[in-house]
């Protein structure tokens, strides 16, 4: 409180000043909003069987894959648009989207030097460490610019161990049996509206196979980026860890500023065999739209892992700060006895963002364990919903689940909603659920300020502390990036 002899400031004003600060950071400009100018090779807008045939032909796919796409498309046509999520979704005109875009310069490359300088400078602007530092750090990058894989590094080193890490298109060409065996087995095209759409029109993505007994010696990383105006992005990722294998996979993304909403409907499938472990981490920072809710990415993602083998483990970690609308429930099907599923999530909804995210843990095998830690942050007019399902089948004796869902509210125009669902069909299941909702208390802020921290730095510190349990699950270099991302979302125009 600043004293003023003539005109004491009423207490209520002080609160609203705090509100203004909180709201200001929530509306700060998106730091990564710009458009790069690469010639695109775009299929005309619209969706029909011809377009699907065109995409498949263009990618020189085998007929079984075209057939699968067409079946998915026909199924999609029969499905109603989903409405159950706690989201306000403007109607999407699926005929107004172009379903394939490839950078023209994206012929096969042997090294980074061959990369289109324009693309490279886009990556540089984004601060994507595609270059030496990253390679030195031991991260193999399969950078996806829109729909086609542009650069793949470190492939040979991985190949020595029998690890396959390549674009999805390449996997279809080089390892068709592996792809055919697993594609659509964890997320069938009948699963949901957007999974069906993705199955029909998916353009590219990543494929990973870790053979028996192999520990992948580096973090595998893919940076996705939506870069063509008005094109939907339909990534497809498939990761298979064979018996006793281990892999840690990182996915991170930013997108340029746009005035029209862009649809993103990815599918990620994970398969873990006996005693294998897959860790999948995401930092998502797509353009969230402006303070009025104009522009921004629609992010409807289906991510699911299958713990097929005994004592297998799948762990999802996500930091979601971007997109206008996020609809995403990374899930684990615990089929193998003694298998483990984990979900660690930080979701930030500021400005007019809407996030509806959570997880499903489906216990089928005996002695299976799942753990859910969700940290929601709502600011501005952001709406954050956690939606979780823990399902314990009759067969899943001695199942255990622990769920913790925390919500942090900043300002009084935002919202947090928690919808935990439990379907317990086995009497000896042990299920624990905790939920908290809190505000950043004025006294906490004041304490930090008294130590010399300006408001926005204090908020960044407090929020990072709040999300620590999840951030700690990220691989080191990703954790640093994620903290910065939260801080960027928190700093900006204040001060």
């Amino acid at each position: 409180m600043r004293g003023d002899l003539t005109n004491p400031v009423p207490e209520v004003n002080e609160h609203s000043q705090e509100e203004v600060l909180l709201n200001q950071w929530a509306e700060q400009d998106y730091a990564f909003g710009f458009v790069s100018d690469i010639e695109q090779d775009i299929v005309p807008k619209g969706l029909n069987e011809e377009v699907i045939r065109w995409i498949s032909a263009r990618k020189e796919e085998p007929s079984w894959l075209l057939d699968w796409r067409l079946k998915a498309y026909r199924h999609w046509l029969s499905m109603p648009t989903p409405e159950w999520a706690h989201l306000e979704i403007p109607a999407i005109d699926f005929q107004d989207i172009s379903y394939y875009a490839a950078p023209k310069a994206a012929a096969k490359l042997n090294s980074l030097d061959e990369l289109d300088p324009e693309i490279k400078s886009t990556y540089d602007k984004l601060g994507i460490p595609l270059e030496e530092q990253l390679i030195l750090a031991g991260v193999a990058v399969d950078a996806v610019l829109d729909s086609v894989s542009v650069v793949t590094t470190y492939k040979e080193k991985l190949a020595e161990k029998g690890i396959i890490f390549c674009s999805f298109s390449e996997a279809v060409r080089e390892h068709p049996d592996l792809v055919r065996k697993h594609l659509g087995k964890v997320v069938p095209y009948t699963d949901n509206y957007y999974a069906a759409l993705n199955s029909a029109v998916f353009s590219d993505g990543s494929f990973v196979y870790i053979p028996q007994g192999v520990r992948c010696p580096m973090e595998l990383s893919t940076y996705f980026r939506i870069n063509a105006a008005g094109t939907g992005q339909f990534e497809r990722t498939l990761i298979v860890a064979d018996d006793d294998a281990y892999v840690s996979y990182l996915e991170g993304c930013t997108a340029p500023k746009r005035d029209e909403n862009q649809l993103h409907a990815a599918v990620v499938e994970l398969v873990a065999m006996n005693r294998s472990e897959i860790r999948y981490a995401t930092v998502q920072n797509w353009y969230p739209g402006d303070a009025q809710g104009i522009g921004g990415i629609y992010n409807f993602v289906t991510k699911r892992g299958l713990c097929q083998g005994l004592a297998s483990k799948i762990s999802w970690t996500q930091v979601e700060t971007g997109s206008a609308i996020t609809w995403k429930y990374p899930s684990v099907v615990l089929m193998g006895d003694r298998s483990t599923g984990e979900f660690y999530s930080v979701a930030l909804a500021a400005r007019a963002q809407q996030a509806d995210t959570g997880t499903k843990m489906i216990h089928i095998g005996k002695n299976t364990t799942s753990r859910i830690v969700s940290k929601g942050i709502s600011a501005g007019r952001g709406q954050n919903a956690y939606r979780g399902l823990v399902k314990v089948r009759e067969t899943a004796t001695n199942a255990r689940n622990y769920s913790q869902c925390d919500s942090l509210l900043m300002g009084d125009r935002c919202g947090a909603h928690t919808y935990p669902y439990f379907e317990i069909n086995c009497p000896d299941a042990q299920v624990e659920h905790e939920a908290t909702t809190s505000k950043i208390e004025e006294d906490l802020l004041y304490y930090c300020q008294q130590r010399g921290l300006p408001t926005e730095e204090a908020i960044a510190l407090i929020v990072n502390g709040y999300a620590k349990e999840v951030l700690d699950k990220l691989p080191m270099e990703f954790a640093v990036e994620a903290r910065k991302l939260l801080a960027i979302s928190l700093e900006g125009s204040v001060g």
Partner: protein
Amino acid sequence: MLEIIDLHASVDDKPILKGLNLQIRPGEVHAIMGPNGSGKSTLSHVLAGRPGYDVRGSVRFNGQDLLDLAPEERAWAGLFLAFQYPVEIPGVSNTNFMRSALNQVRSHRGLPALEAGDFLKIMREKAGLVQLDPSFLSRPVNLGFSGGEKKRNEIFQMAMLDPQLAILDETDSGLDIDALRIVAEGVRKLRREDNSFLVITHYQRLLDHLRPDIVHVLMDGKIVRTGNDTLALELEEKGYDWLKAELA
């Protein structure tokens, strides 16, 4: 260093400070005593800039008008408050907190940010000063600390930030006898000719260690008596009733 003239503060139209005057010169240690609810903590928060008070009057701090500054600006200017009830910050380690705070304070005092190595060295040294076990440095700020541990942590933070004026609000409450001596010795080591302390306490014990230059009694929002350390002894012995009677 600090000059308070006719300071009034109220909360929700309830007056708490009612025309308080106080002057502290560089190098001095002042003690404030007074009955519960007399306004001691309110004074410390008004000085530190906590929101929620209607404030009138004038407070000059090293030539600046303190009441014009935001809380963090007061910290940069060299004001430190050891809280009567320190706040917990989940997920933020003491180390991280102090690194952010110290670098902020330093940059506003024209000093360069510290290298990690130098920072750790300073931190270990200051933790040693108040015999704070190093394990507390990696724990979240104050989270799950015992009452006494929180107080010791406040003095550690004070040592880190090297303030011009440190206000200690009942830092001695909750400290065991050894801790009290350690904290008091820590404060004594930090005393210089150019910094000052305002120590709020109910007990003579801390003052035995600190040897204040001046002792004030705060009652009902005003300083009603000022003396030397014999005043504290007198209060310890007789309580406040005689003073109330005298004033009435």
